Structure formats: structure tokens, C-alpha cells
């Protein structure tokens, strides 16, 4: 029977004709929602607490319970000591460093990774005591600190942040928005030579005023 030419075409035509009258599989979404299996959980997502930290403690209970073994997780234990991993061995390795240069193992100078130098915090503690640890008097505190150390060391600003409760970023931002603060011992006031020269050429002197960097 298979030797009859055109039989396959006829069969196919009748198949499509039958499909024409079959009930349709389309679900008209906004009006009709599809039936979702009762154990469907949607996309897996880790939750954050109110401080912005991951609530996940890397206990692997979810990975153990996952019936289709789709959870594959890695991280550090709660003491931050050991790297732990659940699931099959990583093919590509977990990527902890974004820079390919640093991943290659060579030493790369990075100012952001260098630790700030320690200082003797007795002077800044005394200044904070005098100003009642009040973050509202931040400008006075910073000026007194500069007077005591000659510049504003990072350690001093960290100490001020810790004692007053103001965020370090806010203190640093406050300090950098004024022109008369210096952040390194060898730092001169930014652009002061140029401003003096400019003022001299115009027949005057630059005025003292806050500048925005």
C-alpha cells in the first residue's frame, strides 16, 4: 500500500484537517490563567533581612530536600572560615574574583585593597569627648582632628564614624566637599597654587570658600 504515490500527502492532509476541528490548546492568558501544579514554587530566590544581609546560612537543607536536585550552592560557613559547596563538582570553578588579571595569580596594585595605616586614636577620642560625640557638630570635629594630626587620616574618620554613629561615607563626603581638608600628610590643598596664580593675574586673591570636588 505504501507504493501508492500521494498516499502520504493525503494522509497528512487529513491529519491537518482533523486538527482544524480539534479543541485548541491556547490559553487566553489575561482572562484565563493556566492551571499551576500545587507544588510549583516559581523561581527560587534568596531572601535578605532588614539589614541587607542574606538570610541564607548555607545550611544546605533546601539542597538536600530538593526532589529534582536542581539546587546547587556554594558559600562560606557562618564563621567565614571554610568554603563549602553542595552539588556536583564545579566544572568551571566558582568565580570569586572578577578581574582576570588578579585571578591569574600575579600581584596587582590596587589602592582599594590596601589597608589604611593605623594611628594613635587618643587625640581623636579626646576631640570626640569634647564635642559630646555629636554628629551634628561634624565640621568642628573634623577641623579639630585636622589640627591635631595635620590631615584627616582614614583611621581617624573610621573612629569618628564608629563613635558618632554617622556613616563613614557621609563623613568622607562632608570632608571632601570642603576645600580646606587634607587627606594625606603630603597633600596640599587641591588646586591652591593654580588659584593663587589665577588670582594674582587678575589682581586679587582667591577667597576662602567651600568647594565641591
Amino acid at each position, binding site marked *: 500500500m505504501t507504493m501508492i504515490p500521494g498516499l502520504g*500527502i493525503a494522509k497528512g*492532509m487529513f491529519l491537518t*484537517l482533523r486538527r482544524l476541528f*480539534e479543541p*485548541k490548546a491556547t490559553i*487566553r492568558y489575561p482572562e484565563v490563567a493556566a492551571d499551576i501544579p500545587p507544588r510549583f514554587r516559581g523561581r527560587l530566590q534568596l531572601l535578605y533581612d532588614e539589614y541587607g544581609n542574606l538570610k541564607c546560612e548555607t545550611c544546605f537543607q533546601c539542597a538536600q530536600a530538593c526532589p529534582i536536585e536542581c539546587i546547587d550552592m556554594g558559600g562560606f560557613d557562618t564563621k567565614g572560615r571554610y568554603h563549602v559547596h553542595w552539588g556536583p563538582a564545579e566544572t568551571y570553578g566558582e568565580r570569586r574574583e572578577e578581574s582576570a588579571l588578579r585571578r591569574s595569580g600575579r600581584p596587582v596594585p590596587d589602592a582599594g585593597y590596601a589597608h589604611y595605616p593605623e594611628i594613635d586614636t587618643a587625640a581623636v577620642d579626646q576631640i570626640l569627648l569634647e564635642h559630646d560625640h555629636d554628629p551634628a557638630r561634624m565640621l568642628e570635629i573634623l577641623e579639630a582632628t585636622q589640627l591635631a594630626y595635620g590631615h584627616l587620616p582614614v583611621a581617624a574618620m573610621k573612629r569618628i564614624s564608629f563613635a558618632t554613629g554617622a556613616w563613614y561615607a557621609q563623613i568622607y563626603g562632608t570632608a571632601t566637599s570642603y576645600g580646606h581638608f587634607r587627606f594625606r600628610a603630603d597633600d596640599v590643598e587641591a588646586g591652591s597654587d593654580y588659584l593663587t596664580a589665577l588670582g594674582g593675574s587678575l589682581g586679587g586673591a582667591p577667597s576662602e570658600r567651600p568647594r565641591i570636588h
Partner: protein
Amino acid sequence: MTAAARGWDRLNLFGKALVIIVPIFVVVTFTAILAAILVLPIVVDVAAANLPIVRFFVAVTAILLVTIPTAFIVGYLELKVLAFMQTRIGPDRTSPFGSLQAVFHGFKMLIKEDFLPTRADAIVFTWAPVVVFLASIMTFLVVPFAPGFYGQDMNIGLLYVFAVGGLTVVGLLMGGWSSFNKYSLLGGLRSAAQMVSYEIPLTLSVVGLILLAGSMSLVTLVEQQSGSFLDWYVLQQPLGALIFAVAATAEANRAPFDLTEADSEIVAGFATEYSGMRFGFFYFAEYVNVFIISALFVTFFLGGWTAPFDWPWPVSGDINLGQLGVGLLLAALAIPLIGTLLFAAPFAVSRRRMPLWQALVIGFLLFNVVAVIVISLWAFISFEWVVGLFWFMGKTYTLVFTFIWLRGTLPRVRIDQLMGFAWKWLLPVALINLFATAAALVVVGK
């Protein structure tokens, strides 16, 4: 502030619209009546003196106007039928049952950027879609839709159909060559090869018809088939009909021979660089082509406008509405109003909670449906050409459905299979069909 400005400010939006529209209507009406009195007699005289030219212009305008809804209907049918064959619903968002989907596709094409590639041949690039489109719709000029309802009854109609249809190749090559893109050029060459190959069996398949009918006029062809379906040429030329169907499918670039722009495989063949409405015209031409090959098949093999059997209730009457005189005008004014109120009444009475305007809207729609049915019935029994058009369109759209059905069923052939089939099978079979027809005619001694 003048009195006129104060008065204008006191009007609401509707009033302002009326104040603008009513004078325009008055002026237009006045001008129209003046023109009818002064200019119309001259125009009628000139037109009567040059009747063939007038007939040509009317036919061309009608064809241009008719092709647009035709392409939209065929495009919508394709979307919907293909969807149903794949157990989908298809378009149903844009309008009732998605019926305006193809129209919105057209609007989308209009909105898009009309892009011209760098170093493309701008003139040829612009005219290629026009040539393709014209080659498709010029066939309409000789298609006999109904008795007395055709653009021109040429005595070389059949030759004209194939000559004009062959122009499509020129358009495709123009598009492929002028795009300044090697893929477009390859696509154009490929479609040219395909269409030229299939043109030969396509033309040979209807030579048998010419021998049988003794004429190349399409109207004569249809008239020779009048009677019942036993007189249709498909029964005398089954092989010819089969060859014509296959070759015409390839000629119109339809599945399973749609290698020209094979949506799922290559970018777009000759139309790779086309965008906007220029691309839209290629698509337009494709859908018009589907209608045309169906219409030609109906004309050649399925008896054109003739009914497939003797109509058991030969109703025909001559209801001359002109007898009513002024009454006709009054009826035209009063019947829609009365009909709307009549159909709205049951809803307004039986459903208390339905607002009156809803009942009126339903009444108006129902009245429209009934009026269209009544008018169609009146036209059907009064005019012979309406009956012919009914049968012709019925057969043609059945064939259009068949072509879409084929597209939904058959997988696309390979280019070597396509060419091999044309030259190794279709051409010899078409020649055999021609010789057999000729020999049979000699034996019968017709």
C-alpha cells in the same frame, strides 16, 4: 471681545463642530448640484464618446481597490487557518476574532522606516515591488468573475495571463540585483530559476484546454464549461489540472515550493534588504497571487462562474425599485430608523436593567445583519452576475483554503528536488498530456 467671539465661546464642543461642519456641507452640496447641472452633461458626453477608455479606467480603479481587501482576507485566512491546524487560536486580540489582524500588519508596514541600503540602485530598488505587485494584479483585468463582470474579454486572454504573470520574475530579479547585497542577488537568481522552470509546465498544462475550447478567451473557456459539473474541464483534463495546480503553487511561491523567501531558513531571499511598505508590497503581491492562482484554476478547470448543478429552485425576478419613485427615498430614510427601533424593542422591554442605548445599539446591529441578508437575496434573484459572483467566489475561496491547507501540511522541498521535479517529471507529463489531448481530438474528429 466681539459679539461673534463671545457667541463662539458659549458653544460647547458639539456646537462648535456643528458650526464648522454645517457650512462645509452646505457649500459642498451647493457646489455638487451646480457641477451636476453644468459640468455633468459634458462629462457624460465625453465619456460616452470614449467608452473603451472609460471602461479601462473604471476596471483599473476597481482592480486596485479590490486587491486590497482581497489580500487582507487571504492573509487573515492564512493566519487563522494555519493557527487552527496547529491547534492554536490565532489572532484574536485586535478586533472581533482578530479579523483586522492583516490590516494592522499593513499599518505596521506603513509605520516602519523605508530603508535604502548604501550604494543600492535607488530607482530599480523602488520599482521592483511595484513591478511584482503590478504583475500580480494585472491578471485581474481578464479574470471573468461573473457574466458581464470582468475588466476585458481579450481573445488572447490566456496568453495575456501567462505573459503578465511572467513579469514577476523581472520584479524579483530587479529587487535582488538592486539591493547591493550578494544574498539578495542569490535569492533573486534562485527565485528566477524556480519561476522560469515552472512557467513551462504551467503554460503547457493549459494548451490542452486551448485545443478543447478552440479559444484563448477566458470568457469563452467558462462558457464552454456551462452546464453541470460534468462539463468542467477538470474531468477532461485531470492531468492538466494536476500539473497546473502544482506549477501554479510554485509560480506563486507558496508552500511547499516557497523557497524564495522560506521564512524559517533564509533571511528573506531577494527581499533581504527591503523594509517598510516596499517589503509590504511583496507580501501583498504574494497574497494576491494566492487568490489569482485559485481564480485561474477555477476559470480553467472548475467552470468559473457556472453553478456545479442545475439550481433546483430557479428563482429569478425583476424587482424594479425605481418604480417607487420618491417613495424609495422616503423608504431609505424611514426603514433603517423603524428597523432599528423594531429590533431594539424586545431588548428594551424584556431586559429592564439594560440601558436604552445598549438596546438601540443591539437593534441597529441586528437590523444591519437582516438588511444585508435581504439586500443580498434581492441582488441574488435580480441580477445574473451576482449569482455568478457567488459561485465564482465560493469556488475560489475553497481553493484558497486548499492552498493554505497545503501550506499547513507539507514540508518544504529542497532546491534540487524542486528543479528536478519541474524538469524530469512535470515537463514530460505536461507534454504527454498535450499529445494525448491532441490525439484524442483527432480520433474523435472534433
